[in-house]
């Protein structure tokens, strides 16, 4: 068997993404949807699968799923069906999951990504609705069910509406996959249909990745990667896995179809199980539910009432604010950031790029340090606009403004209040400054002569002296101008 040189290998990635919907109640019963809580307190005969209980579809979940389908440019099924997926696992109260098999709510969509290497169109195979399982705690042994001493089941999550989004294998790099997930999260968040918190499991990503020699028709052995708990992890895990597969192929090894687990700490993947046989889930139409018929007018009404999605927002921001793509990408990454920026830009009214710089360069740093996100920030968007206005007016220097921002971040006070409290206002009265400048020239004759002789870089030294004398309150721009006038050769 010949060993393939690295440049002839190509990577294929497809994603399977689960999104828990933030409906008020569960998919098939009236129990509340929430995260965590005292185990088994948000349950009823239906989500516990008690004998005799029957599911009733949450129509809001159908609406949310259809909105996701519309956002991914899918065709929305006129008639869709629920099905039973049969397998035994104790976190699934009925030992079958109500899901969709034939006739899902949405199919044949696509999403265009603007990546580093240009635009990529990613096919979305299907968007379907199902119920989530409960959660298990396996005590003793390796933490897996097979060798545990006992397992505890919490059915609070059982029956939470769950949307599954499956892509075509159209992604070819880890970065594209990461970008797709980031964009998907932003879209779902903009739709307002899910919390999309990867750390709480309301957004879960599994990836199928394979590497093959370029030009081959068959895909390589498909490896399913699980346990990627952040968008960053998606990139890391797939980069590692791609590298592992490439190296194996280059070394002439044969890859096997398997499921691998990503370890956040080591940044590596390890084999969970090999797929020796395919599960037979014995899907069949769910007889307890009737087919869902989507009227054209209903779908059109949803389409018309879709909120602005990230891609549309990016175009608008570019047109309205003239922002570069890099800034747009950062600000549009979450609904909260985008809304915050828009509010600040609106309150400011001037060059939005200045607002952007303050957010990205300064505010994000403070947030990171404090370990909180923008929604928890004490500074309101209009307050940042106020701060930038003070700098524009020359009331404070840019350097002072950073200090002011630090105070605002702690207290939530307006910039003007902080400036006043701290006595930070700049001295811009020419008459006052004139006297100080004269003093400094008199005290530093050598430096003054150098400036007079044309060594303009010595002005900085004199400006520094003025600043020191005024306790930093002098407007440095004004001081420089005064010195230049007075020492003009």
């Amino acid at each position, binding site marked *: 068997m010949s060993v393939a040189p690295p440049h002839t290998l190509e990577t294929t990635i497809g994603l399977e993404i689960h999104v828990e919907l933030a409906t008020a109640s569960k998919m098939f019963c009236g129990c509340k949807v929430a995260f965590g809580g005292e185990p088994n307190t948000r349950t009823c005969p239906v989500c516990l699968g008690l*004998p005799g209980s029957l599911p009733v579809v949450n129509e809001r979940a159908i609406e949310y799923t259809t909105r996701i389908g519309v956002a991914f440019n899918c065709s929305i099924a006129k008639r869709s069906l629920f099905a039973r997926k*049969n397998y035994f696992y104790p976190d699934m109260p009925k030992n079958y999951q109500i899901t969709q098999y034939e006739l899902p709510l949405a199919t044949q969509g696509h999403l265009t990504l603007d990546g580093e290497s240009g635009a990529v169109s990613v096919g979305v195979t299907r968007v379907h609705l199902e119920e989530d399982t409960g959660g298990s705690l396996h005590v003793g042994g390796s933490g897996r069910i097979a060798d545990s001493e006992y397992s505890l089941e919490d059915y609070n999550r059982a029956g939470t509406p769950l949307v599954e989004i499956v892509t075509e294998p159209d992604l070819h790099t880890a970065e594209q996959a990461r970008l797709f997930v980031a964009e998907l999260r932003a879209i779902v968040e903009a739709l307002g249909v899910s919390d999309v918190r990867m750390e709480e499991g309301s957004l879960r990503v599994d990836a199928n990745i394979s590497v093959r020699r370029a030009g081959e028709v068959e895909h390589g052995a498909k490896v399913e990667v699980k346990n990627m708990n952040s968008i960053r992890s998606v990139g890391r895990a797939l980069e590692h896995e791609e590298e592992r597969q490439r190296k194996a192929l280059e070394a002439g090894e044969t890859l096997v179809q398997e499921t691998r687990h990503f370890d956040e700490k080591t940044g590596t993947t390890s084999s969970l199980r090999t797929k020796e046989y395919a599960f037979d889930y*014995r899907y069949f139409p769910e*007889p307890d539910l009737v087919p869902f018929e989507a009227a054209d007018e209903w779908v059109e009404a949803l389409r018309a009432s879709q909120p602005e999605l990230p891609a549309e927002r990016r175009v608008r921001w570019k047109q309205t604010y003239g922002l570069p793509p890099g800034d747009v990408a950062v600000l549009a990454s979450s609904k909260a950031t985008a809304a915050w920026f828009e509010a600040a830009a609106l309150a400011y009214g001037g060059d939005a790029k200045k607002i952007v710089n303050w957010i990205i360069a300064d505010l994000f740093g403070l947030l990171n340090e404090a370990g909180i996100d923008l929604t928890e920030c004490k500074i309101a968007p209009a307050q940042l606009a106020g701060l930038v206005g003070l700098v524009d007016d020359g009331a404070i220097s840019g350097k002072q403004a950073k200090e002011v921002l630090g105070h605002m971040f702690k207290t939530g006070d307006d910039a003007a209040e902080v400036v006043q409290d701290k006595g930070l206002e700049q001295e811009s009265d020419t008459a006052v400054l004139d006297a100080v400048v004269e003093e400094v020239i008199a005290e530093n004759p050598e430096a003054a002569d150098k400036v007079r002789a044309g060594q303009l870089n010595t002005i900085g030294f004199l400006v520094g002296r003025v600043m020191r004398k005024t306790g930093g309150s002098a407007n440095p721009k004004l001081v420089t101008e005064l010195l230049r006038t007075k020492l003009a050769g």
Partner: protein
Amino acid sequence: MTPPALHWRPATELAAGLDAGDLTSVELTEAIIRRCDDVEPHIAAFLQRTDERALTGAAAADARRARGEALTPWDGIPVAYKDIFVTRDVPTTAGSRILERWVPPYDATVVERCSAAGMPLFGKTNLDQFAMGSSTEHSGFHPSRNPWDPARVPGGSSGGSAALVAAGAVPWAWGTDTGGSVRQPAALCGIVGAKPTYGLVSRYGMVAFASSLDQAGPLTRSVEDAAALLSTAAGHDPRDSTSIRDGAPNLLEGLGEGIAGKRIGVVEEFGGEGSQPGVRARVDDAYGRLERLGAVLEEVSLPSFEHAIPAYYLIAPAEASSNLARYDGVRYGPRRVATDIVAMNSKTRADGFGAEVKRRIMIGTYALSAGYYDAYYGKAQKVRTLIVEDLKRAFQRVDLIVCPTSPTTAFKLGERTADPLSMYLSDVYTVPVNLAGVPAMSVPCGTSPDDGLPVGLQIIAPVLDERSMFQAAYAFEQDLGWAESDEGRPNL
């Protein structure tokens, strides 16, 4: 002729007595308890009695009636339930050891509605496990017996309910009918049993056997009682997505309108050799009686019906294999200790389910398996569509269709348990009705000249035309006069 003892009277007659003040609910309930004590050793029809609870309910009903606040005419008339309806605080087993000692935290909609009408719950009755069977011999606890001859089965799967009503032990009872489980025991016990249109009665709280076929149905001693009990529980239930949204009919209205001029179809394929001669004789008499009552009889052909049994025995087990997956020892029912979860699930299910249940789970699992789905489940669904279409076509020509309910009278205990296929054929006339979702009922048409055991006439109606079906059954019953005569009561 002296009027029959209290416990033999139909519920509608008892209601009149309660209303007139000739009778209290407590007196009635006490009479029922005495009668049950007498007959239960012979018929073994209960899985659980709730005498105290019924007496408390009866006293409350009497108090309401005394204040002039009776909830309904049936306030204070006890009712028994097949032990497949879940009942809050009363153990519910579905006839299987796998649910032994499970106490549901909620009431089935049927139970809730009858309780709201004032009917005290009077015990949970025996059945074939998970309603899978036609003789009640597949109960996980004990077989029940036919009050006409305790050596014979009462039919099934609602055999306990049918035996109690036939024995004059309870005025009325609920059963469920997936392939004939109300109508066949009604026929074998000489009483009335109705299966309404699929979706007329909520399935919420009925332990599921085959979800697309299961329907609750009343078992009573008179057509009027069946109309009253069914009307009490029927109607849309938001907790059952397959429940029909239209309002429920009051089937007591217009019950006596007769059948003059009605076109009634006799199933061509069900004539001849399929039934015992005694059954055929009685059913032929019944056809003649319907004609004398003014109906116009004609033959209808339902060629797809011959495929109903194989189709049913794929669809029902397929759904059952999934419905019964939840009995795994994790959340309720007895649990067998084992080294790991798979062994625990397997051992619990191996010990908890009876042989017939296991047989059907295996058939259903096989029928749904990848590679076999199209050939079995898919094909069976196509047959189901043909049956629906055959019936639709027939109902363009006729208002109702009649045939025997069961090809035989009650058979002996043990006669068919060794041969599942012979047991399955008990349902040859009832199964197509479930596959089509239409209503049908069994009404007694006397006893077979061969063995003196009751024979039932099945009346099948188009979707949601329960009214015509009940009118025909009532006209026939009144004209025959058998049920109210001494002949219509077993000698027990």
